[in-house]
């Protein structure tokens, strides 16, 4: 207990808990639909596009979060506009994401001063979050969740049965664009905590685990957010206790939860 009080006395730890909490809930809920739509690779690509945006912004002296948002939003809307199939077309997305990562490397090359910044962009730096960033994260999360709540119903319909949804008057392309814009927001946020290379750990791991643990939409959806939150906060505590990187602990917990759920499911299927 005294160690917990000591940990929470540090303002950087308070900030880290607040920031990772906000991001985990957003990532878990948005990621749930990403997994449901089998578009997790598109989310991965958006994070790499965001890397180019963040490094490009740093190069011209703008805030990296703003640069990242501009690029992920642009990329998300474009992917949605090009159509459902493109967002699931692995090769095209793979080419674009490596191109974006390459651009990011080029920007970093010109912006030589900061290897530390590169590391924090790639692998996250939740212990370096300040109060201003938390306010920005909170505002973006509120916008993202409000937008998700607004389109959740046609989004679910379009994800489960696109042909019927289209016949019933759902505008598939509009919904796809709006959703990928929301994903872009969540990706930009998650990158602040776990870095662009590890957004999967918050956006895909917990939702995929939740979907294995429950077949009910209204159980699995909040469970995804809860798991993401638990993994992020437990990761922080473990990082504080061990002095190992927070991102490592979050990925380890996310992977362990997924593995255990998969094992449990296999056992249930066999028994």
């Amino acid at each position, binding site marked *: 207990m005294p160690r917990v009080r000591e940990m929470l006395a540090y303002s950087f730890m308070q900030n880290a808990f607040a920031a990772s909490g906000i991001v985990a809930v957003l990532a878990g809920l948005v990621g749930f639909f990403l997994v449901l*739509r089998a578009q997790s690779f598109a989310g991965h690509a958006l994070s790499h596009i965001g890397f180019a945006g963040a490094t490009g912004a740093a190069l011209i002296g703008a805030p990296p979060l703003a640069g990242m948002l501009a690029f992920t939003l642009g990329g998300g809307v474009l992917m949605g506009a090009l159509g459902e199939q493109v967002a699931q077309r692995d090769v095209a997305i793979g080419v674009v994401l490596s191109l974006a990562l390459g651009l990011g490397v080029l920007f970093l090359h010109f912006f030589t001063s900061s290897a530390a910044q590169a590391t924090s962009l790639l692998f996250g730096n939740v212990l370096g979050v300040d109060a201003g960033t938390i306010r920005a994260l909170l505002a973006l999360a509120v916008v993202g969740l409000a937008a998700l709540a607004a389109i*959740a119903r046609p989004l679910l319909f379009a994800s*489960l049965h*696109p042909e*019927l949804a289209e016949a019933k008057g759902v505008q598939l392309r509009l919904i796809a664009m709006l959703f990928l814009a929301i994903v872009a927001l969540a990706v930009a946020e998650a990158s602040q905590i776990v870095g662009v290379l590890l957004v999967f750990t918050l956006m895909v791991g917990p939702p995929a685990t939740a*979907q294995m643990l429950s077949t009910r939409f209204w159980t699995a959806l909040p469970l995804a957010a809860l798991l993401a939150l638990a993994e992020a906060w437990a990761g922080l505590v473990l990082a504080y206790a061990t002095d190992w990187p927070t991102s490592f602990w979050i990925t380890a917990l996310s992977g362990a939860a997924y593995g255990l759920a998969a094992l449990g499911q296999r056992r249930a299927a066999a028994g």
Partner: protein
Amino acid sequence: MTSAIRLTGVRLGVAGRMVLNGIDLAIEPGEFIGVLGPNGAGKTTLMRAILGLIAPAAGRIEVFGAPAKPGNAAIGYLPQLRGGLGAPRLRGRDFVAAACDGQLFGLPLLDRGAARAVTAALAAVGAEALADRPIAALSGGERQRLLLAQALLGAPRLLLLDEPLISLDPRRQEELVALVRRLQLRSGVTVLFSAHDLNPLLGALDRVLYLGAGEAALGTVDEVITAPVLSRLYGTAIEVARVHGRVFVLGGGAEAEREAHRHEAHDHHHAAGA
């Protein structure tokens, strides 16, 4: 009385290719229409046009007297399945429920009336037992029943069922046709039921809509399933044979031959099962 579906001089193209070329026909409310024709004849295209998803290149398509347009609540639709359904881990009930006013914005919450409607649709197709199982654990026939439950939501006056018999074994095919016929007799809904093979539908249908070579023939089985009509639709010499109340389409065209083989394969199944 307004027709359920009326096509006037309809020309329909997909990707620059004319699929239906000048079709005139009327389908009356309460009819069970078997929609037949070789692969690529335009069965799916016609249904999508009735749904307002494809605009005709010429002519008019009216559904209950109004021009076809997307979002028509009077139509229930079971699309032709390509591959699996999304979200294999989700339970059947939530899959069906997603179609309940799924086009509205907001959260996918069901009020009590909507929840009852979902339960009723599941019960109507005998899928109560499937409601709690994940979609991945269902057989092809069980999935088709969930899709049929979705199509029944909102008490439609017209059901468009696109090849629901695909990948079902003959016994499941008979069950599904009988189920649709029962639902139709109870509610008076108009049914368009497309299929590769006429025989499973013989006991249920009122009239046949046979598509081929850009043309359509609508009439009773005796009027449409004849050598002259089918020869015109297939563009090659076709013979029709009837054996033990079953109909066999035989001919020189590759499609017709494949059809004939399919029919034979079905008969073997039947012989083995009997």
